[in-house]
């Protein structure tokens, strides 16, 4: 039986409906395959040993930090015991304790705010928006700047205490804080006056770029009040090799 004109049209429509998804499917499969091939060629030759080396160094860093913290603790204990012997030693120890706390070497606890920063988890983003939808090192430095402006007393990013030598460093899409590898989500724990801190983060003049990317690209950015936040002490090296205090070290200023 020869199909009627209407039946032929219906069959053609069905075929066309399947054609588009089939083409797209083929495209995606080939893109996926090409990406995998490209990635594996490079990674097999160079990346795999380099990633192993980076991970090994990061692990070693954690061990070295633990050793350093133990040594600082033991030295502190000896000096604390010795400081009971004379008035000068006692004053000197009090001064060291005060500066150690101000420099961020001792842990702190108190009320404040917690800032959450994360890459957008929106799967429907266009490729051109990817750059705006992920967090960058400059976002973290802007958040730290706003927190200090709001009167922060102590800050830690993913448990790395922010001190006078702290830097947020970006290589490719990898972020390092205090020389430690980090990846999102970032949790910025800020101890300080809650209302002043919230006021600084809510100020429309502050972090306007981050807020716009949160609203448009779905970047994760949230500031919440928090009580009894724990901020660890800095565990890295002081690395003072070139700067010398101009005033003589004395027990009293």
């Amino acid at each position, binding site marked *: 039986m020869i199909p009627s004109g209407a039946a032929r049209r219906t069959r053609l429509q*069905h075929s066309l409906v399947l054609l588009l*998804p*089939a083409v797209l499917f083929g495209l*995606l*499969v080939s893109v996926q395959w090409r990406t995998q091939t490209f*990635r594996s060629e490079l*990674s097999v030759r*160079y*990346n795999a040993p*380099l*990633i192993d080396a*980076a991970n090994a*160094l*990061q692990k070693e860093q954690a061990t070295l*930090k633990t050793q350093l913290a133990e*040594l600082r603790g033991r*030295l502190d204990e000896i*000096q604390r*015991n*010795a400081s009971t012997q004379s008035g000068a*030693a006692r004053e*000197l120890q009090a001064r060291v304790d005060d*500066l150690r706390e101000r*420099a961020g*070497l001792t842990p702190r606890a108190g009320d404040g705010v917690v800032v959450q920063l994360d*890459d957008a988890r929106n*799967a*429907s*983003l266009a490729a051109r928006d*990817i750059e705006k939808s*992920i967090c960058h090192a*400059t976002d973290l*430095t802007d958040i730290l*700047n706003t927190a*200090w*402006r709001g009167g922060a*007393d102590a800050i830690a990013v993913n448990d790395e205490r922010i*001190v*006078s030598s702290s*830097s*947020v*460093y970006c*290589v*490719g899409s*990898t972020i*390092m804080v205090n*020389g430690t*590898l980090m*990846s999102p989500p970032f949790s910025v724990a800020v101890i300080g006056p809650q209302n002043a801190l919230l006021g600084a983060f809510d100020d429309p003049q502050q972090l306007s770029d981050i807020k716009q990317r949160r609203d448009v690209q779905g970047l994760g950015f949230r500031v919440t009040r928090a009580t009894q936040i724990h901020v660890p002490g800095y565990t*890295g*090296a*002081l*690395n*003072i090799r*070139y*700067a*010398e205090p*101009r*005033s003589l*070290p004395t027990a009293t200023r």
Partner: protein
Amino acid sequence: MRRDAGAISTAVVALFLGVLAVTQFRSQDVYSRSLQLETPASLTTVIANLSDRNNELRNEIFDLRRDLVNAQESVASGRGSLSDAERQLRQFKVFSADSAVAGPGISIRIDGDFDERALSDLVNELRNAGAEAIAINDVRVGPRSYFVGTLDRAVAVDGRAVRGPWTVRAIGSPEVVYVAMTRTGGIIGQFELIYRNTRFAVSKDTTLNIPELASGSR
């Protein structure tokens, strides 16, 4: 019947397609934040950075072990451990920006348009290069320092206005900090592209004097 079969196969293809598209996006999302996606050049930089940090930690562990032995000997001999505590005090004075300091380093003179975010980025970069003490004009940058723009196009550090032309001074290894600032693709090169009418001059100094942190900034 034929129509049902067509609809079912279309639905199956569409579903599979949807799953694949989402998987593609999710895998990009995960890869973008793992070391797997980094180029060998970026990974080499990450390794160099980690290596530097670990060497700093090793040096400090070496110094502290020596201090510990000295302190134990001093206490055992009844002399107390004042000298070790004084060495620590000197380090903490520098680290907390509590004291005026002197030492070699670099100066960066910035003449022209500039702003608080760029200044904050510059300080971040100097810290990453190992700067031990930093001042902008005569204002010491401390552990809690922040930067804001002012209405008259000046920049305020901890609420204190500093006006251009700015001189940013940093104590540290002159060679290391100088190269970190001026290398191809480094922060000064980037600034020169962004602030086209601003002049940036970087120089090494044998002795820099940097003031202590202002009392209100502590």
